[in-house]
C-alpha cells in the first residue's frame, strides 16, 4: 500500500458525511459506523435525528448514571431526547421512512453495486442466523441514501462491485458512497467520482475498485 495515500479514518469519513447534511434535514443514522456522524454535526445547525424505534430529535448519549431503559435508540443504546423531540409508535415511525419523509439515511454496507444496489444485512453464509431489522426499510425509505464504508475489505477486495454477490437489501437505492478513499455518486451514467483523498490518482482508485468509475468532472 502506498504510504503517501491520505486514507480517511472512520471518524474522518463520518465528518465528511456530516458536511453534506444541511440544517433542517430529517436524518436516520444506521447502526454501527453511521452513528459516528452525529459527533460531527455542528452544534449551531438544527438537524432532526430519527431513530426507527420511535423518536425524532434524538440527542447524544446520557451522562453516566442518567441512562433510562425506556429511552434507547435503534441499536438499543441509551440516548437522550432534545427539547422539541417526539415519541411515536412503530407504525408511524416506518411511515416516516417508507413514506419518503426522511431526507437522508446513512447506512453501512458490505457491498454497493455500480447501479446503487445495496447489500448490508446478511453475509449469505449458510450457518448465519438471518436478522434484517429496519435495514430494508431504511434502504428504500429516505429521499437520499448515503453509504459510508471502507473502500475495501480487510483482505483487500473492493466493496464497490459491478454486481453484489451478498444477499441484497435494496435495489438501486444508494445515491452517494463515502469511503476512506473517495466520495462517489451513483448516477444514471455510472459511478461518478466526486472526491479522492490526497496522494491517490484516479487511475489508482480505479484499480482498487471493482466497478468502472467515471473520472472527477
Amino acid at each position, binding site marked *: 500500500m502506498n504510504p503517501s495515500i491520505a486514507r480517511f479514518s472512520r471518524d474522518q469519513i463520518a465528518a465528511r458525511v456530516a458536511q453534506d447534511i444541511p440544517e433542517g434535514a430529517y436524518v436516520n443514522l444506521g447502526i454501527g459506523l453511521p452513528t459516528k456522524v452525529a459527533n460531527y454535526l455542528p452544534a449551531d445547525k438544527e438537524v432532526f435525528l430519527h*431513530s*426507527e*424505534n*420511535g*423518536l425524532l430529535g434524538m440527542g447524544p448519549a446520557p451522562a453516566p448514571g442518567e441512562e*433510562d*431503559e*425506556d*429511552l*434507547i435508540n435503534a441499536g*438499543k443504546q441509551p440516548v437522550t*431526547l432534545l427539547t422539541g423531540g417526539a*415519541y*411515536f*409508535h*412503530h*407504525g408511524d*415511525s*416506518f411511515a416516516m*421512512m*417508507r413514506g419518503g419523509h426522511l431526507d437522508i439515511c446513512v447506512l453501512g454496507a458490505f457491498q454497493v453495486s455500480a447501479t446503487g444496489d445495496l447489500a448490508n444485512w*446478511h453475509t449469505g453464509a449458510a450457518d*448465519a*442466523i*438471518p*436478522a*434484517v*431489522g*429496519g*435495514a*430494508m*426499510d431504511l434502504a*428504500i*425509505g429516505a429521499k437520499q441514501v448515503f453509504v459510508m464504508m471502507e473502500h475495501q475489505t480487510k483482505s483487500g477486495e473492493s466493496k464497490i462491485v459491478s454486481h453484489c454477490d451478498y*444477499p*441484497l*437489501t*435494496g*435495489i438501486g437505492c444508494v445515491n452517494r458512497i463515502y469511503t476512506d478513499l473517495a466520495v462517489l455518486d451513483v448516477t444514471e451514467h455510472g459511478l461518478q467520482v466526486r472526491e479522492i483523498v490526497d496522494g491517490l490518482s484516479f487511475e489508482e482508485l480505479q484499480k482498487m475498485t471493482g466497478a468502472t468509475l467515471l473520472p472527477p468532472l
Partner: protein
Amino acid sequence: MIDKITASLEQAVADIHDGATVMIGGFGNAGMPAALIDALIAQGARELTIVNNNAGNGDTGLAALLKAKRVKKIICSFPRQTDSHVFDALYRAGEIELELTPQGNLAERIRAAGAGIGGFFSPTGYGTMLADGKETRLIDGRHYVLESPIHADFALIKALRGDRWGNLVYRKTARNFGPIMAMAAKCAIAQVSEVVELGQLDPEVIVTPGIFVQRVVLQHAQEGK
C-alpha cells in the same frame, strides 16, 4: 360499570390457549411486558406463535418463554443479537420456526390487521430474498411486494398508565409496538405501572383509546392483593 382492570397477572393471561398467536410488545427490553410474560410462562400455554421485533435478550422475558420451550414459531425482524443465545440455540437445533420480516413491514402488517386491511403493497424488500415467492406489482414506476396482515389472538403490551376503560399512555421509546399490537389482537392485555381514575388521562394525549384494549393489569398485581 365497565371495568377492564384485571385483579392479577395470573387472571389476565388465564385463557391464553395452546397454539395461540401472541403478540408481545417491546423493542429489546424497552416496552417488554415482562410481568405478563412471566405470568404466561407460569400459566403453561404451549405451541405458541409469538410476534415480537426480536427473539429475546439474555435469559429473562421473551427469552425465558423460549427457554421454557413454549414457542413453536416466531415472527420477527431481528432475532440475532449479542445476547440472543436462547433463540440461537433453539434455531440451530431446529426447535423453533422463524418467519423473518423487515421491521417496517412487520409494523405495517400488524397495523394492517388492526385496521382491517386485507393486504398491502410495500416497496420494502422488493428484489431481495425476503420477497421470494411473493406477488409483486409495478405501481407508478415503483416496484412493490404484497404483504399480508398479521392477526393475533392476544397481545401482551406494556404501558405507563391505564384506566378502567382501557385508555393507555406509554413512556418514551417503550411505546414502540404497543399501540399497533393492541389494535391487531382479539384480546389486548396491557400491563401498566399505574392505574388511574377515569378522566385523569388527558383525552388529547391518550395514545391507545380503550376500544383496542380488553384488559389492564398492574405490573405488580398478584393474586390476593
